[in-house]
């Protein structure tokens, strides 16, 4: 070690006294040569002979000088600058080559930087919480339905909290309630949540003002306190510090503001303006059949995920024994929060990272081919330099410097490309709802370092083959030969062909991937969701309990509203539902069937939908048996239910469900509902998810019909044009009632297929880039091939070859290369597309039609790329070509 330091110190000194050291060495050499010459003169040589002999005896002067400078250290930097200068000169001499190479590299490197910036933001950067690695989300694992991530029943959450010893805190949020906020500032529609007292401390957030909830504020009756978001505090209250202690009116009830969230606080899922305590009391504290809660927890220091899993497993088993009716088959899943939030995009990102890697490899092969052609043209230059005493290592080094310089320019351009595409990526990603909205995708230090490393490695990779080829050149041969030889470079040609073959193979793999995504998206759009999406307007409403305390008041309001909307010009029909298909909302309840023993756990709960009369008609959901709800199905009349075909098949296989009765496990209203109709299935959760068994209840017969409601309106033409009239209709009934989320059903549909669209767009773009690069690579190689063979072609034509034969010769050569590439690509695609399985829908990863179509497409493009050089070959003038010799 000390030794090493001394060498370094000597080098450092050398660095400073560089010129003096150079001079000293020169002096020594001069003296040495003088003395040698004198010696030879003494032996009887002439002065000139003696000097030559001395030189010979001394050896390679240049090499010695360079070696000594290199040993002294500074030399390497000097060489670098010298090579860079030389490299810049070479690149400027051939602007066309430089432009093509830099653009190719920019595409390759830019795509990598862009995708890496997403990977960096989503997968690598820690979540914005204190010690985020300890945070987990806890789910019910409902084994009978094979659903490992089911949200949590309130009573289960309370038991988990009371019994576990592995979590420092375990907090719950009920994201569902949305509120009308009123006050002197005017009415406001806000997103609110109920949170347990532990919720904000769990994430390590300190309030900007005031405090969070106290644990005794989780008692019903003491829960009239609220915490507001920083955004709402600024927006609505003008950042007034006096807000703490003041009362705000939520749905007509007053709550005292006790705290303001910090500006950078992010809810792990969803965005909320206001939180009130999750006061679980009464029926809710005992509810195990409904699952509104999302539960988050922080592992105690030193507790591993596995230990937590074990303890929670034991708790779940105890609850199973204690509450067999509701908890049989219910285990617990613990997922690290980071994984939970990025789950949906993890696989897609990995596949994309692979895809951009492929694109970069193709770009490298392309540029390597360009450089190879150029280095063959520069053969003479290298030979001369080798003859003049340049070391081979030194030449390789210079060529690599040129490559890295080229890569550097490509890297800078690529970074600009990544910056430019950032906004598009962000829009696509957040639009597809694949990542939390607050994740910021930007070009930070890590992305810069990644780009730098990619650039360096890229430069070395594509520069190495040409550099090695160049210096392997036979010195004597190259100097003797005046120009290029028609037969030379068999090995180079093999290398060039190998590069193109691999480009085509890689492009083939990407194209197959993209082809599968196109197929799957196309099938996705053809899926019948079970209802008609055209010309449907949807509007959200939520009636406040304070102004509508009784169920019948709510029903009355909606009855009148729907009638009013139904009579608007341009409206075909109107209806309402608490949970709309494709909206991402759903709920399920457990129930009993009359005359049957309690249902087995895998069928105990079923999707549950409160709707109004007119809903099926408006959505275009056909009735297959029985009758629709009517305006007579109200509170007080016989309780009814309509089920879908999936439910009929599951619960009454081979029987007639009409007239059967079922009862929800709702402690507040224990009544039997009679099945009066069966409707067709709807893909409620999205087009890719099979319909689930569903039961529909008349809104007005439920115990608390003040659920937020989505009104759906089928219109004759563009649905959005009716939005103002609908808003007006609401205000005429209640001038304080806001409407929100005015959307069309088609928007919801587009949103539900947005992830697939995102995959398609990204993958398709990359595959297109790959295709263009591979085609231009093939074109370049064939073009070069024709140039090298001009003489041969000329001779052939002089001897009577037809143009068509020449055409066939060139195209045949190119297509030979292409077919090998396509063949390898097919094998490669077959091997890797299985990684995409879960990104696809309705198409096999080895879909023969897609494979065949892509192979044909690639062959057609390759044919085009070969045809241009081939046509040039047929235009060769035999006389000129022969004179060339």
């Amino acid at each position, binding site marked *: 070690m000390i030794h090493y330091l001394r060498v370094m110190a000597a080098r450092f000194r050398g660095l400073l006294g560089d010129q003096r050291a150079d001079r000293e060495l020169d002096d020594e050499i001069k003296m040495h040569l003088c*003395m040698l010459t004198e010696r030879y003169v003494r032996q009887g040589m002439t002065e000139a002979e003696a000097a030559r002999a001395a030189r010979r005896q*001394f050896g390679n002067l240049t090499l*010695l000088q360079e070696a000594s400078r290199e040993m002294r250290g500074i030399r390497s930097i000097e060489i670098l600058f010298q090579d860079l200068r030389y490299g810049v000169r070479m690149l400027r001499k051939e602007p066309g080559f430089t432009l093509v190479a830099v653009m190719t590299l920019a595409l390759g490197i830019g795509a990598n930087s862009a995708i890496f910036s997403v990977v960096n933001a989503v997968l690598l950067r820690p979540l914005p919480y204190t010690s985020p690695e300890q945070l987990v989300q806890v789910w019910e694992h409902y084994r009978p339905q094979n659903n490992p991530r089911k949200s949590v029943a309130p009573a289960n959450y309370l038991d988990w909290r009371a019994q576990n010893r592995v979590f420092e805190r375990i907090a719950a949020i009920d994201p569902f309630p949305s509120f009308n906020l009123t006050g002197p500032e005017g009415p406001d529609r806000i997103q609110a949540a109920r949170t347990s007292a532990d919720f904000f401390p769990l994430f390590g957030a300190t309030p900007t003002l005031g405090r969070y909830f106290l644990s005794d504020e989780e008692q019903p009756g003491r829960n009239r306190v609220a915490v507001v978001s920083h955004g709402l505090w600024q927006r609505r209250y003008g950042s007034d510090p006096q807000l703490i202690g003041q009362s705000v009116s939520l749905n007509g009830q007053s709550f005292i503001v006790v705290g303001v969230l910090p500006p950078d606080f992010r809810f792990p899922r969803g965005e909320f303006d206001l939180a009130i305590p999750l006061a679980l009391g009464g029926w809710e504290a005992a509810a195990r059949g409904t699952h509104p809660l999302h539960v988050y927890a922080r592992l105690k220091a030193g507790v591993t995920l596995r230990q937590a899993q074990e303890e929670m497993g034991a708790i779940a088993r105890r609850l199973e024994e204690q509450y067999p009716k509701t908890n049989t088959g219910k285990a617990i899943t613990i997922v690290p929060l980071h994984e939970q939030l990025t789950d949906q995009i993890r696989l897609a990102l990995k596949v994309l990272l692979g895809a951009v890697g492929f694109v970069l490899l193709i770009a490298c092969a392309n540029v390597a081919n360009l450089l190879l052609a150029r280095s063959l043209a520069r053969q003479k230059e290298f030979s001369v330099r080798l003859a003049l005493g340049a070391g081979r290592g030194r030449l390789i080094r210079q060529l690599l410097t040129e490559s890295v310089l080229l890569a550097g320019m490509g890297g800078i351009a690529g970074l600009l490309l990544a910056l430019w595409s950032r906004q598009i990526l962000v829009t696509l990603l957040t639009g597809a709802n694949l990542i939390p909205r607050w994740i910021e995708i930007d070009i930070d230090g890590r992305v810069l370092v990644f780009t730098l490393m990619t650039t360096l490695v890229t430069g070395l990779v594509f520069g190495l083959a040409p550099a090695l080829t160049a210096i392997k050149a036979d010195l004597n041969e190259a100097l003797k030969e005046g120009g290029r030889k028609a037969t030379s470079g068999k090995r180079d040609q093999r290398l060039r062909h190998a590069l193109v073959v691999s480009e085509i193979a890689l492009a083939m793999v990407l194209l197959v991937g993209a082809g599968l995504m196109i197929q799957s998206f196309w099938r996705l759009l053809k899926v019948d969701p079970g209802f008609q999406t055209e010309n449907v307007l949807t509007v959200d409403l939520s009636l406040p309990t304070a102004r509508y305390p009784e169920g019948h008041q709510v029903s009355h309001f909606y009855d009148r509203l729907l009638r009013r909307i139904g009579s608007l010009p341009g409206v075909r029909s109107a209806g309402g539902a608490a949970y709309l298909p494709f909206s991402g909302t759903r709920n399920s309840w457990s129930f009993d069937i009359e005359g049957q023993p309690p249902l087995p756990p895998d069928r105990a709960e079923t999707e549950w939908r409160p709707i109004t009369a007119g809903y099926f008609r408006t959505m275009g959901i056909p009735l297959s048996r029985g009758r629709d709800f009517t305006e007579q199905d109200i509170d007080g009349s016989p309780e009814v239910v309509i089920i879908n075909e999936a439910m009929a098949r599951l619960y009454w296989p081979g029987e007639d469900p009409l007239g059967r009765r079922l009862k929800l496990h709702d402690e507040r209203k224990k009544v039997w509902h009679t099945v009066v109709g069966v409707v067709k299935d709807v893909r409620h959760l999205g087009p890719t998810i099979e319909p689930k068994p569903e039961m529909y209840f008349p809104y007005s017969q439920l115990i608390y019909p003040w659920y937020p409601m989505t009104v759906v309106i089928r219109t004759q033409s563009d649905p959005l044009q009716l939005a103002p009239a609908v808003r007006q209709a609401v205000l005429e009934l209640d001038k304080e009632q806001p409407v929100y989320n005015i959307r069309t059903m088609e928007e919801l549909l587009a949103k539900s297929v947005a992830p697939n669209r995102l995959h398609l767009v990204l993958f398709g773009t990359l595959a297109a880039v790959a295709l263009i690069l591979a085609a231009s690579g093939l074109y370049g190689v064939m073009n070069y091939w024709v140039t090298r063979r001009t003489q041969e072609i000329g001779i052939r034509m002089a001897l009577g070859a037809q143009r068509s034969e020449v055409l066939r010769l060139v195209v045949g050569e190119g297509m030979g290369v292409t077919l090998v590439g396509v063949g390898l690509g097919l094998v490669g695609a077959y091997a890797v597309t299985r990684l995409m399985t879960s990104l696809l829908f309705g198409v096999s990863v080895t879909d023969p039609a897609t494979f065949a179509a892509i192979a044909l497409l690639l062959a057609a493009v390759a044919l085009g790329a070969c045809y241009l050089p081939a046509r040039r070959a047929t235009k060769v003038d035999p006389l000129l070509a022969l004179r060339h010799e």
Partner: protein
Amino acid sequence: MSNGENTNSEKSEVLQGTLDLMVLKVLDALGPLHGYGIARRIEQVSKQVLQLNEGTVYTSLLRLQQQGWIASNWGTSENNRKAKFYSITKSGRKQLARETENWERIAGVIGRLLRLEGQE
């Protein structure tokens, strides 16, 4: 390829790494010397057996100096020229002893190996 162009191919090339050892030994045996003197001395001892590019002596000197095994200062040569004289240092002597022992051990092994006869 470009080899086979030397006329005096019966001379051996200097083995990689042995030049440093030779230079050290020469300086140890003869005291301070300039580069030319070292080259002459090696030539003399090798009796034309070794093919030495004399320039490489300077690379070796530089290397040894960086390791701290030799030191240098300017003086005047026997024919009144300004010349840089090199001399071995204390750590250089230690290194020489180590290397000599090492060399002898390896040379011994190789010698024995080459004398090896087929055994029944």
